């Protein structure tokens, strides 16, 4: 974003500078060259006219061929008029002065014809105009004949050069000023374009981060304003739909909670009835006895499902709170197994003396769900291992069944997820693992929630799927899974990772 804005600014800057410089260069150099041409042409024409006037003073010519003295006299006459000159008559030439070294063969050749010719030459870097002509003699019949006398006169063009240099300085100044102007204009234009673009970028980022109330200020009526208006419209629609969705979701959750609560009362009555039926079932035979037992079982299942639903709805509404207590983890785990009559069937590796501050009821729910799940879907022996870290402890529940299908792994903690199509529907509510997972996440330590992950031992540790991918629980999962691999062959491993000291409820716990 920053890089792109910079490059847009640079591009605008370059375009303006290029435009400014090109325009100035064309205009300034055009007028400069034109002015220089005019100045030089004017100076040269003036010089030719002026020299011609001076030369007319040499007539009438007295003697031809002239003597050296006469030649020098004529040169001096011209010099006195401001025209340092060289006069030449065939091999005879006036004493050399500053003009003679400047004469060029092409100028002398041109003067051999019957015209006035001139040429600009450079004398030590300063420009000099040389004007040359042959003196013609007028014949009485009107024709003129060359006398053989050639005159070359020099004139400095320094003042013209100064004028031209001033023009050049003016052109460079104009160029520099236009450059500055171009830069300023480009910056103004860039700011005009880039500020809204940057605002738009920031707003889009905020929107992307979930702040659906983000709105842009619409300024003017240009394309950028149109974009801002579109953005606002989109954000508004998104916000409306989001609110609507949230409302619908909370409605649905409340409905589930309400239904669960409403079911409780009739279920209590039904439970009472089935209790009575259970006592009488011994006397019933045939279809009546089977029906009574079926009703009894299903009523218990329904009661458990409703309890689970109520539990889940508490998590969803965010009202679930931890009731922390100091417990010995090994003792708590043993109590959980014993309470459900599993103590003899589970291979336990529970080191003594691991103390933790957590919600004992929730730990009980989690472990009971995991072990019950292992019995239902895995194969015995089921093992329970406790392992302590400085701030956390982990509990692994492993079985020796076929393991979890790789396609099932990512969804194993989802509600009512049927991992096994052949699963006996009489056992479990389908919410057990989901409730375990929610309970685990309620326990937090330094802002990090506890984790519950599932993996297959036989399919190597890296297949492990974390219940919460973003937390560090993965590391311990991989480690413990491979450890489990050394003692067992195949089966699913659920790894529970809880803090030794969970944070008090109310400071960020729950959903």
């Amino acid at each position, binding site marked *: 974003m920053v890089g792109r804005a910079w490059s847009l600014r640079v591009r605008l800057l370059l375009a303006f500078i290029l435009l400014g410089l090109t325009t100035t260069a064309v205009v300034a150099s055009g007028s400069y060259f034109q002015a220089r041409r005019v100045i030089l042409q004017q100076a040269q024409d003036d010089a030719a006219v002026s020299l011609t006037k001076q030369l007319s003073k040499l007539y009438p010519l007295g003697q031809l061929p002239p003597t050296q003295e006469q030649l020098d006299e004529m040169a001096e006459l011209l010099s006195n008029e401001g025209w340092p000159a060289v006069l030449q008559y065939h091999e005879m030439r006036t004493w050399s002065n500053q003009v003679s070294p400047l004469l060029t063969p092409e100028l002398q050749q041109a003067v051999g014809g019957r015209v006035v010719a001139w040429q600009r030459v450079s004398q030590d870097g300063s420009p000099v105009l040389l004007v040359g002509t042959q003196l*013609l003699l007028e014949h009485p019949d009107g024709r003129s004949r060359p006398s053989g006398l050639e005159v070359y006169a020099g004139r400095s063009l320094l003042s013209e050069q100064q004028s031209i240099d001033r023009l050049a300085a003016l052109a460079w100044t104009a160029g520099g000023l236009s450059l500055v102007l171009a830069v300023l204009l480009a910056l103004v234009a860039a700011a005009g374009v880039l500020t809204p673009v940057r605002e738009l970028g920031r707003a889009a980022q905020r929107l992307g981060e979930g702040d659906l109330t983000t709105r842009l200020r619409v300024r003017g009526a240009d394309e950028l304003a149109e974009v801002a208006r579109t953005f606002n419209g989109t954000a508004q629609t998104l916000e409306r739909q989001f609110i609507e969705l949230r409302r619908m979701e909370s409605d649905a959750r409340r409905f589930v909670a309400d239904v669960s609560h409403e079911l409780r009362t009739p279920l209590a009555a039904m439970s009472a009835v089935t209790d009575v039926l259970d006592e009488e079932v011994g006397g019933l035979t045939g279809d009546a006895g089977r029906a009574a037992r079926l009703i009894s079982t299903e009523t218990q299942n329904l009661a458990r499902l409703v309890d689970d639903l109520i539990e889940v709805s508490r998590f969803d509404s965010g009202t679930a709170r931890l009731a922390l207590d100091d417990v010995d983890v090994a003792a708590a785990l043993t109590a959980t197994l014993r309470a459900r009559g599993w103590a003899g069937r589970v291979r336990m590796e529970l080191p003594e003396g691991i103390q933790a501050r957590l919600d004992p009821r929730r730990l009980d729910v989690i472990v009971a769900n995991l072990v019950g799940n292992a019995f239902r879907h895995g194969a015995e022996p089921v093992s329970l291992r406790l392992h302590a870290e400085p701030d956390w402890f982990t509990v692994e529940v492993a079985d020796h069944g076929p393991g979890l299908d790789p396609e099932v792994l990512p969804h194993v903690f989802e509600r009512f997820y049927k991992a096994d199509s052949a699963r006996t529907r009489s056992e479990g509510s389908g919410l057990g693992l989901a409730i375990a997972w929610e309970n685990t996440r309620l326990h937090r330590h330094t802002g990090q929630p506890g984790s519950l992950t599932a993996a297959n031992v036989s399919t190597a540790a890296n297949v492990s799927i974390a219940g919460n991918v973003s937390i560090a629980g993965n590391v311990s999962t991989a480690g413990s899974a491979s450890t489990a691999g050394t003692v067992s062959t195949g089966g699913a491993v659920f790894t529970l990772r809880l803090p030794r000291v969970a944070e008090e409820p109310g400071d960020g716990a729950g959903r």
Partner: protein
Amino acid sequence: MLLVLVTLLAAGCGVQPSGVIWGGPAVRGPAEGVSLYLVRNGTLALVIRPVAPDLPPTEVLRLLAAGPTVHERREGFTSEVPADAVPTEVAPSADGAHLVVTLSSPVTTLSVHAVRQILCTVDRAAASAGQVVTVTLHGSDGHLSPQSCPN
């Protein structure tokens, strides 16, 4: 592009030397003296002697027969007109169409340059404005056909 532009501008600045520029016709003016035609480097060349300009043609031809001065000789001028080619008479012909110049020497043996020297010198001496003078040379051995100064 910018660099090229700047370089071009810097190079084209100030007053640069130029080639030869041709202007109007060369300066012209009168001469004061007598015009004679001598030979220099194989061609006819004009010299002006600082004497009274209104000398009669006979006298002018006499000056021509006398040959170049020391100064003119030093500057490379020569004359092919023999010293004995002294004019005896310069007069218009009977029909007035041309000028008859009578020399005391033979004329048929004169070199081409010598004849032209005489023709042109007479032309300058006797010419009135805008008129081409045709001259017939007479001498001790006969005469030449009428001619005029070639340039």
